[in-house]
């Protein structure tokens, strides 16, 4: 990576190189590489993320916060930046700000157990700090929520708790547009629509009564805000009630939904088939996202190179060491295609991954974003961690495509 950066000082490889220095504890070297890289690429969000982590390592918490906020300016859905900001705000005892960050994560990944726990802790701490003026969590307006893709199950549940069934329905429908196979949300929507039909059309919005398991601190009354403000905001209690929903209840409901909404095996198989794209079918916005996601992946110690090749064998995005050898792209593509055909012949279903382990490294081939993601890694890399990172990368790409 160092040589690559020397050859091309404008390269984005500065970020993984700085990250490698940071992980080794060489924070000053990391800072030098990263700050120089950002001078040439000021809009590169992953560079700001790395710089933030360097500042964090140097205990320059305010600087770290600024960098992570810059990441979110470029990439509002960057979970890592939200998570690191949440942690920093907790360290700085700014619990209200931490709540915002954790809530942002949960709107993107509602089932993130770890963040749910952190949010609870942050809310409890915020309530302890401010007894007179309880912390109130701002909720984005409908427009903001839609434009930033923040529609989420958590958000819908919060709307429901406030009696805004229409907004909850819209939120669920928004989720289903993006995740049409989400049986849990399908069932929630069906149940909710049944409730709405039963209600009189002219009746005021009916507030859904929480079950006993959710009914926490119901005696706590907030008087410091006008009714209008109350309508637009969710209280800590609302958040806590939704977050503290009995998990077993959720799981039981999900299982029954899956059994009820279960679709024929054949249909599901067809839907699961990945869409393949030609190199010229990727938009520039998609390529930008892919570059960022692959650069983040390449920042993992031990990864030499990541590239996405289209199904015609044309490299779409490449990060890390560059071979300048198109025949290699075609070669790995051929391995993936042949294996895929063999798997079909052997009735083994859709090919998900091929991992080739050689003397000094690994080649990993994964169906990814309409093409094939190829990762070249050193032999000592932790394959389990790499798999997790690749899954995370795939989810990020899925969200924007």
């Amino acid at each position, binding site marked *: 990576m160092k040589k690559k950066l020397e050859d091309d000082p404008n390269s984005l490889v500065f970020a993984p190189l700085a990250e490698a220095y940071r992980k080794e504890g060489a924070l000053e070297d990391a800072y030098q590489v990263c700050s120089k890289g950002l001078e040439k690429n000021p809009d590169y969000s992953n560079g700001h993320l790395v710089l933030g982590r360097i500042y964090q390592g140097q205990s320059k918490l305010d600087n770290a916060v600024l960098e992570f906020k810059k990441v979110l300016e470029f990439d509002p859905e960057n979970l890592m930046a939200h998570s690191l900001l949440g942690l920093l705000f907790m360290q700085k005892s700014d619990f209200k700000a931490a709540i915002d960050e954790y809530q942002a994560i949960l709107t993107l990944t509602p089932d993130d157990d770890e963040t749910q726990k952190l949010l609870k802790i942050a809310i409890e701490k915020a309530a302890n700090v401010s007894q007179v003026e309880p912390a109130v969590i701002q909720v984005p307006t409908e427009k903001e929520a839609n434009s930033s893709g923040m529609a989420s199950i958590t958000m819908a549940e919060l709307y429901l708790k406030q009696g805004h069934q229409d907004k909850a329905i819209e939120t669920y429908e928004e989720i289903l547009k993006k995740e049409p196979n989400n049986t849990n949300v399908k069932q929630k929507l069906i149940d909710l629509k049944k409730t709405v039909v039963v209600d009189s059309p002219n009746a005021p919005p009916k507030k859904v009564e929480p079950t006993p398991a959710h009914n926490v601190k119901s005696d706590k009354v907030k008087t410091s805000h006008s009714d209008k403000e109350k309508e637009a905001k969710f209280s800590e209690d609302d958040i806590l009630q939704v977050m503290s929903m009995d998990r077993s209840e959720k799981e039981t409901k999900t299982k029954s939904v899956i059994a009820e909404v279960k679709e024929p095996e054949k249909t599901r198989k067809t839907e*699961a088939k990945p869409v393949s794209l030609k190199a010229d079918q990727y938009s520039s916005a998609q390529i930008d996202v892919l570059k960022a996601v692959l650069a983040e992946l390449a920042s993992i110690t031990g990864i030499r190179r990541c590239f996405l090749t289209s199904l015609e064998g044309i490299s779409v995005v490449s990060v890390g060491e560059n*071979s300048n*050898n198109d*025949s*290699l792209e075609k*070669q*790995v593509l*051929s*391995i993936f295609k*042949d*294996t895929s055909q*063999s*798997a079909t*012949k*052997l*009735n*083994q*279903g*859709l*090919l*998900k*991954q*091929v*991992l*080739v*382990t*050689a*003397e*000094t*490294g*690994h*080649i990993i081939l994964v169906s990814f974003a309409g093409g094939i993601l190829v990762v*070249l890694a050193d032999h000592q890399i932790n394959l389990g961690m790499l798999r997790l990172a690749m899954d995370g990368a795939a989810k990020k790409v899925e969200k924007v495509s």
Partner: protein
Amino acid sequence: MDFKKILEEMLENVEGSIGASLVGMDGIVIDQVSHNAFDINAVGAEYSSIIKNAMKASSNFGLGNTAEILITTDKASMIMMLVGKNYFVALALSLDGNLGRGRLEIKKAIPKFEKELS
């Protein structure tokens, strides 16, 4: 030469294993064992050419000789490891199979195969 015994041992020791075979690089199966109706013979024929391509790719990417290939589909996993230059052993596992254990058992079995083949 009791290849079958070595293969059976592998299957017994690996949770979720479906079948195992010792295959020549020409795709011809030397011996195989399998649970249920899994066609492990076809695996040898299908995947031997993929192993050859993977060997070429590893070499071209400067990674040295190929030692192992893991294929994951939405129904099963297949671990293949080279036995010398001319053979490979394949182990098929269901999705809930223990991949780590599978790799370990193949690595333990390779010297036994090599001894039998020498």
